[in-house]
């Protein structure tokens, strides 16, 4: 299972390149075991742990609103050593930084935060949280999995695990297809929810659902549309590979999901050719008959 390896290398190289260029990147290293990760997470993770709906007024931030741009990539390999197990990479601002953008200049000046002492920051943060979710980050999510026993046949079940549903407290994904559009609640942010938390939650969900996973890395991009566009370009190519895997997996089940409409590859071509010949003969006879 090495069909995605080139994109795992590309994504890793892109992160290294950004880091080298001095971009704002935050790395977090988590322990490998799920039980260890669970010990240090500020929200609940598991079936029915999210109350169901995050209303507009309860939203702290939206990630990947289609107008801002978003992209979700899932890659996996049978070479677990290719990945740095437990690493979470954030390129761009974190969730807690977002509310500042919702404040007017006046609000910042009034609480004196331009002087930047600790009390000002606490007050500023609390003011941010009370702001409505007018702000949205562009959002790229890259999940990379490694496991010696992972094969093409695991694709569907891994993809299904991406349907997070109600498993992460204070976080709801509302996106479809290759985009990822989600909401984080104010309550979750009050508990300390940030991208590290989201990365931890995803690691818990994936590692619990798939014991074959030996290593896992998660990357988030929240910088700008241009960076998301780079990911989208990767995503297009990755999608083509995934489509081929899906096609083959369906073939194993006995279905050809993309029937080829090319006559040259159709098993029934000789039958159609015969019919065409008969029709030609018939037309010739008719035209001779009619003079």
């Amino acid at each position, binding site marked *: 299972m090495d069909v995605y390896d080139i994109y795992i290398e590309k994504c890793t190289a892109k992160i290294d390149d950004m880091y080298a260029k001095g971009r704002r990147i935050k790395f977090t290293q988590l322990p490998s075991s799920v039980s260890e990760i669970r010990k240090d997470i500020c929200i609940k993770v598991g079936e029915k742990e999210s109350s169901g*709906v995050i209303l507009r007024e309860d939203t702290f931030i939206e990630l990947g609103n289609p107008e801002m741009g978003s992209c979700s990539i899932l890659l996996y390999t049978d070479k677990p050593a290719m990945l740095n197990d437990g690493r979470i990479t954030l390129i761009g601002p974190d969730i807690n930084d977002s509310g500042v953008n919702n404040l007017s200049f006046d609000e910042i000046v009034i609480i004196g935060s331009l002087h930047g002492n600790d009390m000002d920051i606490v007050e500023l943060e609390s003011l941010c949280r009370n702001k409505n979710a007018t702000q949205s980050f562009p959002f790229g999510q890259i999940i990379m999995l490694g496991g010696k026993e992972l094969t093409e046949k695991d694709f569907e079940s891994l993809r299904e695990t991406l349907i997070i549903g109600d498993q992460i407290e204070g976080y*709801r994904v509302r996106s479809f297809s290759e985009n990822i559009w989600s909401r984080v609640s104010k309550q979750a942010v009050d508990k300390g929810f940030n991208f590290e938390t989201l990365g931890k939650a995803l690691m818990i969900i994936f590692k619990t659902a798939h014991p074959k996973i030996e290593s896992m890395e998660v990357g988030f991009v929240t910088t700008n549309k241009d960076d998301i566009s780079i990911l989208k370009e990767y995503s*297009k190519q990755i999608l083509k590979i995934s489509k081929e895997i899906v096609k083959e997996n369906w073939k194993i089940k006995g279905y050809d999901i993309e029937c080829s409409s090319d006559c040259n590859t159709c098993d029934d071509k000789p039958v159609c050719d015969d019919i065409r010949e008969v029709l030609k003969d018939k037309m010739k006879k008719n035209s001779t008959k009619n003079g």
Partner: protein
Amino acid sequence: MINIFSQLMMEANKSLYGLTIDPQNASKGPVVLGNGDFFIEIPVAFGCAFSDLTLTGANGTALPTAAELIDKGIETGVGSRMCNAIKVASYYLEAGLISKPDMIITSNSCCDSMTTLGILMNGYKPWADVPKFTMDAPHSFDEESYLYFGHQLRNAVTFMETVTGRKMDWDRLREVCVESNKQRQLLLEFQELKKAVPCPTEPDLARQGTEYTTWTSDRVTPTVTAWLEQLVTATEQRVKEGKGIDGVNEKVRFLWQDLAGSWASGTVLARLQKELGAVCLMDYVSYATWTPIDLSSEETMFTSFGKRFLLEDAMNRQALHTADLFCNDILQIVKEFKCDAVIMPAHIGHRDTNSRMKIVRDLCREHGIPCLVLGMDIWDKRYMTPEVVFDRMKTFFEVSGLI
């Protein structure tokens, strides 16, 4: 009980009545006639009426004379297993009941019946002098396909300009798209609210809202935006209060993986909800997967239109593409909306869906989701009556241990 939701429903239904034959014939010109969803923002911005003959036929099956209209449709010679919405449309056409349009824009589409209707319209002799344009929809979903179909739509605009001698007002198109984006965001918001348990209000409002936004003469107007805003605000309030649908003790949430058609909502689905607490969370039309129209340039706008037509339009999404996408959508809806069961109405006219029955059954079995295949006609209740559908679904819910 009269409340804000029933008032909104009445308002939308009043507008939806406009899709029946008489109001459609009364449309003020220039009139574009089509056989399926033409990208609505285009005719709205162009200032012309767009009449979808498929919808006119479908709405004919909701009239008191439905049975008679369907039987007359059979007499026009279309195949007996053809979708009955199309049979009625064929009858309207062949009987000369449709006003002559100023132009015809058709497309090959997800549905073989709709494509047949397009062929009938294009070959209808009394309209031989009506200018015609046919778009080619690829059966794939990738950037190249969206771009390709976007170009088809752009060419349709040029065709409209040639026929009418008028020019598209590009600023107006942009304005219409901004309004359209606002409406889709609100519909997506309402969809999000349906995830609450219990479902806060009539989930069918999502279908009606989509139809109101997409098909009626009020489409892409501030009137519809205001309607949607009211709907979302009132529903949010109910979520906050933890309330479900008035008078319904929600026990089962299910996916109806097809169109609701012309009679199921008001009969079977309403009765299931009231008597058994079985709530239909989603159908083809109410499943919203829209991305906003990208307004950066003319090309990106048309590519967005192309994407919406090919991948995000009701029934095109489910029928134009692979079984894999169809199955993945089922799983996504079941998981996200906490559905307890999947109902496959297996409408007789939907041969594409019918060919996937075994696949869906296998999928549901693998995932432990109770699944029932009906084999009904969503436009003709004589084929399988509302009582029979109700009884079969009731028995299914009972034996599945859901009620």
